[in-house]
C-alpha cells in the first residue's frame, strides 16, 4: 500500500496517543529521518483542548519530491492508545486502503476507526518497549513506521540524536534500541525498500513555517522586534529571540499588541527595520498602529499567523479568514501592502520580500501566514532569497559637506530627490515615484516631525483639502507605481503553451491553500484536463494587469479556506474576474485536501440551468451556491 497513495509516490502516516505518550516526538523523528535520506516531507500536528499533556496526533507526509500538503488520506496510523481518538476522526481520514497499527493492550479498535474499513494490525508496542530498559511504545512505533515507509534504520537513529539530543544519554539509547526493535520487525525493513538518495549536494532544511518566517526577517536585515505572545505566532518570536541577537538586533516583549506595533514604529522611525508577529486578536489591536505607519510613512511588517475566527476563535487551528481585515481593516483610505506566503519555505521568501518592500515604499505590510503554515514542520529545499528591492530612500549623512550642499541621496539608489529647504525639511514632499527621502534621527539638518494627522509636505498638520488630496494620492501612487516583478504570484502552467486555451481551468488561490491546489492541478492534468494554478503572493496592491493576462479566457475557480469567499469577493471588488468565475470557499479548521478541489471542479462543470440569472436584472450570484454552508448575502 505504501508509495501508492498517489502518483507522487508519497506516503502519509499518523501517530496518535494520549498525553505523555510521545506521539509528536515520534513524528519529529520520522520527519528528521526523512530529511536525512534525501526525502521531502511535512508534519502537521493536532492536539486536544488540554493545555499540556492531552491527547495528540502527528500526521506526516513523506515523498521523493517536494511535499506541499498533507494529502487526501492517511495510509498508516500507529495508535499508541485510543484515548479521545474521536476528536481526530476528521483529521485522520482513514479509508479501506489504510492500515491501522494498534496495541491490543490498549483495548479494542474504536468503532469510529473500525468504520473506516481500514485494515487492522495489532502490534504490541507496549510489551516490546518494555523489553528495553526505559523503552517507550512511541519509539517502537517509530521503528515500525520507519520500516513501513522505507526509511533506513541508520537515518532513524541519526534523527533520534538530532531530535532527542538534549535528553539524557540513557533515554536516547533506550529510544534507539526500541526503534531498532520496531524497524527489525517490519517486512519493509527487510526488503530494502530504500528510497533513492538525493544528490549529496542538495541539502534539505527541516523547519516550521514560523521558523522560516523568522529566517525571512533575518534575511531582510530586520533589526528590531517587539511582540506579545499569541498562539500560533509565538514560535516565530521564540525562534527569533536568540537568533536576532546573534545576527545583531533587539527584541522586546511588549505589554500588549498596541505597544508592540507602536514600538515597531518607533524603531523604524529610528532607521531600524522592524517586524512583529501576531494572530487575529492581536492584529485587531494593531490596526490603529498599522494605520499610523501608513499615514506617517514609517515602514513596518506585521506577520499574522492566522487561526480560526471570529474572535478568540480556534487558537490552535487554521483558517484563511483574516484576509478581509488585512486588506480593508484600517480606518480611512489607508493604502498598504498585503502579502501571503504559499508554503512553509515561502514564509522565508515572503517575509523577506514584505519587509524589504515596506522599507522601500515606506508603508505598512501585513503578511498573512496561518497555523497550517506556521506550525507545520517540513523538510524542504532551502528557499530562495527574494528579488532585490532597493533600500529605504534616505538622505546623505556622511559629512558636513553634504549638508552644506543640501544634497540628499540614498545609500542605495543615489538619486537626488530633494534639497534641504531654508526652513523645515519637507519630509513628505511629493516626488515622481511617490517616495520621499526619509532621514533617520541623528542626521543633522533634516530634523522633521512625523505625523499621523493629515499634513502638508513638511509634516505640519493641515486640514486643507488640497494637502489631503496631495498626500493621499502620494500614498496610493507609491504603491501602484512600484514594479513588483514576477514574484506577485506563483503560476503553474505545466506544459501548456503561453496562450491558454479556452477550455482551460484556472485554479486561483492564496496562502496555505496553494499546496493542495497545486497538487490537484498536477493530478487533473494527468487525467487530461487543461489546468493551471495561480497562487497570489502579493494581494495588495493587486497586480491587476498581470492577473488579468494570466486568467484571460479561462474558467476560474477561486479556492480558499474561509466561510465567505474573502479572496473571491476581493477579486470581484477589483473587477478582475470574468463573470463566469466561481468560488470554492469553506471554513477551517480542516486542512484543504487536493481531492476536495478536484471534486469541486466536477461539481462546477457548466450546468445548463445553472444559477446564472436567478436574481433579477443582469446581476450574478455566481459562486455563492458553491460555497460550503449558507454564505449568501453580503458580509
Amino acid at each position, binding site marked *: 500500500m505504501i508509495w501508492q497513495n498517489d502518483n507522487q509516490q508519497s506516503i502519509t502516516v499518523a501517530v496518535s496517543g494520549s498525553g505523555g505518550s510521545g506521539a509528536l516526538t515520534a513524528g519529529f523523528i520520522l520527519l528528521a529521518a526523512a530529511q536525512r535520506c534525501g526525502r521531502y516531507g511535512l508534519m502537521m500536528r493536532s492536539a486536544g483542548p488540554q493545555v499540556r499533556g492531552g491527547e495528540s496526533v502527528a500526521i506526516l507526509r513523506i515523498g521523493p519530491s517536494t511535499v506541499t500538503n498533507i494529502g487526501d488520506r492517511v495510509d498508516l496510523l500507529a495508535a499508541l492508545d485510543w484515548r479521545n481518538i474521536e476528536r481526530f476522526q476528521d483529521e485522520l481520514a482513514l479509508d479501506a486502503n489504510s492500515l491501522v497499527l494498534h496495541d491490543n493492550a490498549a483495548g479494542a479498535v474504536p468503532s469510529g476507526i473500525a468504520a473506516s474499513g481500514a485494515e487492522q494490525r495489532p502490534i504490541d508496542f507496549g510489551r516490546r518497549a518494555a523489553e528495553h530498559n526505559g523503552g517507550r511504545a512511541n519509539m517502537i512505533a517509530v521503528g515500525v513506521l520507519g520500516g513501513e515507509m522505507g526509511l533506513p534504520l541508520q537515518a532513524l537513529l541519526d534523527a533520534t540524536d538530532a531530535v532527542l539530543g538534549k535528553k539524557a544519554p540513557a533515554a536516547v539509547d533506550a529510544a534507539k534500541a526500541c526503534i531498532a526493535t520496531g524497524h527489525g520487525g517490519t517486512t519493509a525493513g527487510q526488503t530494502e525498500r530504500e528510497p533513492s538518495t538525493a544528490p549529496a549536494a542538495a541539502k534539505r532544511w527541516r523547519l516550521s513555517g514560523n521558523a522560516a518566517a523568522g529566517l525571512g526577517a533575518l534575511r531582510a536585515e530586520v533589526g528590531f522586534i517587539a511582540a506579545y505572545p499569541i498562539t500560533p505566532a509565538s514560535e516565530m518570536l521564540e525562534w527569533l529571540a536568540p537568533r536576532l541577537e546573534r545576527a545583531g538586533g533587539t527584541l522586546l516583549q511588549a505589554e500588549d499588541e498596541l505597544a508592540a506595533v507602536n514600538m515597531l514604529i518607533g524603531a523604524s522611525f529610528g532607521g*531600524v527595520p522592524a517586524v512583529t508577529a501576531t494572530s487575529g486578536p492581536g492584529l485587531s489591536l494593531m490596526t490603529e498602529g498599522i494605520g499610523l505607519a501608513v499615514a506617517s510613512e514609517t515602514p513596518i511588517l506585521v506577520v499574522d499567523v492566522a487561526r480560526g475566527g471570529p474572535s478568540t476563535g480556534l487558537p490552535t487551528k487554521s483558517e484563511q479568514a483574516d484576509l478581509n481585515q488585512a486588506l480593508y481593516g484600517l480606518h480611512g483610505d489607508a493604502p498598504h501592502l498585503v502579502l501571503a506566503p504559499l508554503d512553509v519555505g515561502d514564509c522565508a521568501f515572503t517575509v523577506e520580500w514584505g519587509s524589504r518592500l515596506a522599507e522601500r515604499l515606506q508603508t505598512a505590510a501585513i503578511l498573512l501566514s496561518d497555523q497550517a503554515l506556521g506550525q507545520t514542520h517540513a523538510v524542504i529545499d532551502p528557499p530562495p532569497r527574494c528579488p532585490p528591492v532597493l533600500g529605504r530612500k534616505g538622505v546623505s549623512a556622511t559629512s558636513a559637506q553634504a549638508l552644506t550642499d543640501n544634497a540628499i541621496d540614498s545609500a542605495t539608489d543615489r538619486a537626488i530627490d530633494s534639497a534641504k529647504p531654508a526652513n523645515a525639511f519637507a519630509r513628505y514632499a511629493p516626488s515622481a515615484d511617490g517616495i520621499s527621502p526619509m532621514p533617520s534621527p*541623528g542626521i543633522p539638518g533634516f530634523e522633521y516631525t512625523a505625523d*499621523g494627522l493629515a499634513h502638508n509636505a513638511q509634516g505640519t498638520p493641515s486640514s486643507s483639502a488640497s494637502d489631503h488630496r496631495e498626500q493621499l494620492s502620494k500614498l496610493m501612487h507609491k504603491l501602484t507605481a512600484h514594479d513588483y516583478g514576477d514574484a506577485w504570484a506563483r503560476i503553474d502552467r505545466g506544459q501548456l503553451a503561453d496562450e491558454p486555451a479556452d477550455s482551460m481551468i484556472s485554479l486561483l488561490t492564496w496562502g496555505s491553500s496553494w499546496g493542495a491546489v497545486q497538487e490537484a492541478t498536477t493530478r487533473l492534468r494527468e487525467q487530461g484536463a487543461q489546468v493551471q494554478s495561480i497562487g497570489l503572493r502579493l494581494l495588495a496592491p493587486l497586480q491587476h494587469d498581470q492577473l488579468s493576462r494570466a486568467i484571460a479566457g479561462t474558467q476560474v475557480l477561486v479556492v480558499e479556506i474561509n466561510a465567505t469567499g474573502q479572496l473571491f469577493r476581493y477579486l470581484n471588488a477589483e473587477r478582475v474576474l470574468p463573470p463566469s468565475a466561481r468560488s470554492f470557499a469553506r471554513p477551517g479548521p480542516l486542512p484543504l485536501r487536493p481531492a476536495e478541489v478536484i471534486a469541486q471542479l466536477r461539481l462546477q462543470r457548466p450546468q445548463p440551468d445553472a444559477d446564472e440569472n436567478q436574481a433579477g436584472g443582469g446581476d450574478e450570484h455566481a459562486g455563492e451556491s458553491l460555497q460550503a454552508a449558507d454564505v449568501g448575502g453580503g458580509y
Partner: protein
Amino acid sequence: MAPAMIPSLRARDYLSDVKPIWCPGCGHFGVLSALTKALAYLERPKHEIAVISGIGCSSRVPAYLNCYGFHGLHGRALPLATGLKAARPDLTVIATGGDGDGFSIGGNHFLHACRRDIDLCYIVMDNAVYGMTKGQASPTTPPDWTQSALTPHGTGIPAFRPAAIALASGASFIARGFSADPHGLSELIARAILHPGFAFVHVLSPCRTYRPDDQSSWKQAVHPFGEHILSTAETAVDTPPGASTSTKLHVQDDGLGLGVLHEVARSQASTSATAGANPDRQAALDAIEAELEA
C-alpha cells in the same frame, strides 16, 4: 547635582517656525519654553534628540521644536519612544503628552514604561482635563468637577495619582513641576533627561479654556516637595518609613509639591529581551541557516 542657573540664550534655537495652536494663556507654552531651556542648558544637538508624543493639546509639542519628532497616536507615545530608544540608544528620547493621553488611554504603557525603567524622559502636562476634545474629565480631574457635559455630576471617582503610580510601578526618577515656573521646570527636565532610567516629570500645566477658575488657584497652592533627599537605595515599598523621599511621596504628597519626588539608580541593566551588536551579520545568518540542515 542641581544644575546651575540655566542660560536661556539658545533655547529659542530649539523652536521650529510652526505656530502653536494653543489658546492664549495655555500652560503648555510654559512647558515648551522650559523644555527648550533644558535642551539648551544640556547642549544637546537637536538632531540627536527625538521628541515623541501622543494626541492632545500637550502632544503638539514635537512640531513646535526643530528636533526629530513623532506625533503619534493618542495614548501610545511611550511605546513608540520605547521602541525608538531600544533600537537607537544613542539618541536622547523625550516623550511628551497630556494627562488624558498618559493616564487614561495610555495608562498601561505608563505602568510598563515605569517598570521597564528604560532611559526616557517623560513629560506629562497635566491640566486635569481633556483640552483637545473640548473639556471632558481626565483621570486627574477632581471627582466633583461638574463642568463637562459628559459628567454633569462630576466623575465621582478620586483623582488618579500619577506620582504614586509611577513609584509603585518602578520609575527611578519622579519629579513635579509647574508650567508657570519655567525656570524650576527646566531644571527638573534637565535632571530628568540626565537621569539614566525612566524619568517621569509631572507638570501642572493649566488649561486656560476649560479649567480657568479651578486652575488659577494652583499658583497659590504649589509648594516645594519637602527636601530633596536623594536615595540610591531601593524604592519605597521596601524601605522603612522615614528614610527616603519615596516614603515622603507616600505620606506627604498632596499632588502640589514641586521638585524631585523620588530618585534612585536604575534597577536593571537592559530593557530588551535580547539585543546584540552586529559584527558580521552575513556570517551569523549563514551559521543559522546551516543549523537548519541538522
